[in-house]
Structure formats: structure tokens, C-alpha cells
């Protein structure tokens, strides 16, 4: 199971990458994709939507079940990954390459309170 050290994480299995322009890119972890099994459908948010931290923002559906994805921090959705929506299995292939959406956080410092790689690994151990 891979947990890159340069990313932040949530207990609800999202990964977060802080970009140079102060936005964040969000996906689901390798642990999550493995637990879900074959992913067959993604429901992604529209750009422009304002979200609160912890708000249900997307849905990842495996053959087995639907799982909600939550906004790691408050902010505005600025993009969704249509390539991933068109090829949901790409999340199984490389969960860190197949991002789901990007958010411009209301306060970038909110990201600091998320888990680091070691903290996330402890949370799923």
C-alpha cells in the first residue's frame, strides 16, 4: 500500500496535494481504492460550487457499493477530472495520478490540520 510522504490525508481516505498556486488537488488513497475494489463510476462536483469542510462532494462507485467523498477543507471547487470520470478504473490503476477535483481553499492554513502520511497510515492500521 503506498502513502506518498509529500501529500496530506483525511481519516475518510482522501489525499490532498497543495499546489504552487495555493489550490489543492484531491483524490482517494491507494488504501481506499484497494478496499473498494473495481471502480466503475465517479460522480464529480461542478466547478464553482462552494463547499464546507467535511461536506459530501463526490461519489466513487465500485462494483460492490457507492462511497461518499468529502471536501477536506472549505473552499470553492475549481475543477473536476473528466478524464477520470471517463475511465473510472484509472483510480484503481494509480490512485495518486487519477485526481478527482481541485479546490481553492477559503483558508489554505486549514490544510495544516490534515493528517500527514504517517498519521494516515496509523489511522488505517
Amino acid at each position, binding site marked *: 500500500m503506498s502513502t506518498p510522504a509529500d501529500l496530506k490525508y483525511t481519516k475518510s481516505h482522501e489525499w490532498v496535494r497543495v499546489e504552487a498556486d495555493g489550490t489543492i488537488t484531491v483524490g482517494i488513497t491507494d488504501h481506499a481504492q484497494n478496499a473498494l*475494489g*473495481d471502480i*466503475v*463510476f465517479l*460522480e464529480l462536483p461542478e466547478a464553482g460550487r462552494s463547499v464546507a469542510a467535511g461536506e459530501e462532494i463526490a*461519489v466513487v*462507485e465500485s*462494483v*460492490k*457499493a*457507492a462511497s461518499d467523498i468529502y471536501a477536506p477543507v472549505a473552499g470553492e471547487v475549481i475543477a473536476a477530472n473528466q478524464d477520470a470520470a471517463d475511465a473510472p478504473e484509472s483510480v484503481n490503476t494509480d490512485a495518486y495520478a487519477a485526481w478527482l477535483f481541485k479546490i481553492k481553499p477559503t483558508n489554505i492554513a486549514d490544510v495544516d490540520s490534515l493528517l500527514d502520511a504517517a498519521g494516515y497510515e496509523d489511522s488505517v492500521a
Partner: protein
Amino acid sequence: MPKQTPLYPAHLAANAKFVDFGGWDMPIHYGSQLEEHKLVREDAGMFDVSHMLPVDVSGAGAFDFLSHLLANNVAKLKEPGKALYSCMLKPDGGVIDDLIVYYFAQDDYRIVVNAGTADKDVAWMRKQAAATHGGNVSITPRRDLAIIAAQGPNARTRVWAALPGSQAASEGLKYFQAARFGDITICRTGYTGEDGFELILPATQVTATWNALAAAGVKPAGLGARDTLRLEAGMNLYGQDMDEDVGPLESGLAWTVDLSPGRDFIGRAALESAPPQRALVGLVLADRGILRSHMKVVTAQGEGETTSGSFAPSMNASIAFARVPAGVTVGDTVQVDIRGKLLNARVVKTPFVRHGKVLV
């Protein structure tokens, strides 16, 4: 503590992921449910279904007993080895279980029932036997037996390669027919919509047989693939598509109920006094999304509900069974409520897929 089949160590060795199913710890997949699904549609896969229970029904009263117990008619079984799918009903018409009954002689039948319902099924059979057939019927649960379902277009030839001598015993079998081969009952039945065999055999032999099938090129498949295969094949799952609160006529199972005159069976009077108000239909989602069980269905005739739903790997679409008001017909467009959005679905005739071909 969940129960384990005799093949549990083999599943562990094959890196299975497990799920609780009817009180049994069963493999849901061995890596990829989608690949296992495809394997069965295109080649051959094998399922451990030893959680299901064979029940032998024997004695001079066996035929009369089963004629009364089952909604389908065992009088249709004339050739030894022939099998029949049937519901076992409560007096009010609700479904206690669905099962397959094999006929070997007028005093020798075998029934295979579902895992989660096995104990209540045996108790019900014994109660009915005691009430109406006294000492003329023996009901014998066979937990000493295990079951492997080898399914797929190449399953039969692989079984023949794995079990020397089995071809002569089983190549003449028609669908829904079984033959005895030593200690193994070879049944040309399944729950996938593909050709294949179900092998009922002593638990002491099941691991060796499983390994022989693996050596002949049959890979294991889990209950996840079994569920998408059966859904595509238009086959009901007990507890999900029908249960004690709904009858066979509202569950797409009218074809399994023999209402021809002159036979009194448990539940008959209830079925005949209450015409069905609802029907189980197939749905194909036209919009993007995945249908699941217990979603609200909106039709011109009123509301209904999905009972089983999934992504259908053979169709690259989402499908479901839905119980809807009578009058909804094939070709109609209905709406399904998925997380608050009403999405369009097409009403179709099931099965969705049979023998590797998409039919809808």
C-alpha cells in the same frame, strides 16, 4: 463466529477477500471481481458454494410430500437426474426459500437450499413431513457434502479434463439434469447464465477436486462476480428479490408456480385469492450512474423500488430488478431516484445476458 466451508484454507491461500454471506465467511473476490465475471462469461471459473445445503428427501411418501411442499410440480420430473427450480411457500404465499430439487426415484430426491435459510428450511420441511406424512418421509441435511460450481463456456470440458472418467458419465446431460459419478453428483445447473456443472461431492474430496480443476485451468471466482453474473442472467436472489413478505407472482417467478388443476400445495389458495398487484421487471439505466437495491422507482402507474442493482460488467451499463405496479411494460421509460436525482431507465425483458450475449 461465521462458519467456514472446507475450502476456506484454499481461499486463504489464493488471497481471497472475504465477506459474511448468510452467516458464512465466503470469498467475495480473489483480486478483481470484474476479471472473475469476464472469466466466467468467456472461459471458465469456479465458485465454492458449499455454504448451500443439500437436503435428501427419501421414503415412500417423498413424491406426495414434495407435491404438497413445493409451488412447482415434481410430477414434471420423469427421467432420473432431472431437476426443477421451485419456491417453497408459506400458507400466505410468501417465499420461505427458492431451491432446486433433483429427482432420482419416486422415493429418492435431493433438494439444494440457500445458506442463510437452511436451518429454517429444514425445520419447515420436518414440520410439514410430520404433519402430513408421518413416518413415510425422511429429511436428511447433508453438511457432509460440499458444492463447487464450475461455470463458463469451457467449464464442462475443463471438468472432464480434471476428473478422468467424468465425461462419459456427464456429456449426455441436458440442462437441469444430473448424473452420479462415483461419490460426485454432476449437475448441469448454475447461477450465471452460462453453461457448466455444479459438483456435489463429499467434503473430504472437495479440496482435491478444487485443486484438480485449478490444474485444468479453472480459476476461482468469488460471490461478487456470482452476484453480477446472476443479475445479468435475470436470476433472483433470495432475501433481496423475494422473501417471506412477497409471493412468487410478484417476484418474476410465475413460471415456477404450477397452478394446473388437481394439486394442493402450500400457498396455492393464497396465490389464487390475491391477483398480483406488482411485477418484478428488468431496468437498464439510460443516464449515467449505478443502480443499487432499495432505490425509489417512479412510473406512470405509481411508485416502485429496485430490489437488486449493479454495474453490469458484460454490458458496461447499470441494470436492476425493480418491483413496480402491475401495468408497467417492457419498453416503458421510468425514473429512478439516485441520491435525489431522477434518472431515466428503460424497462426490459430479462435475462439481460445469456451465454455470453447481451440480449437487451
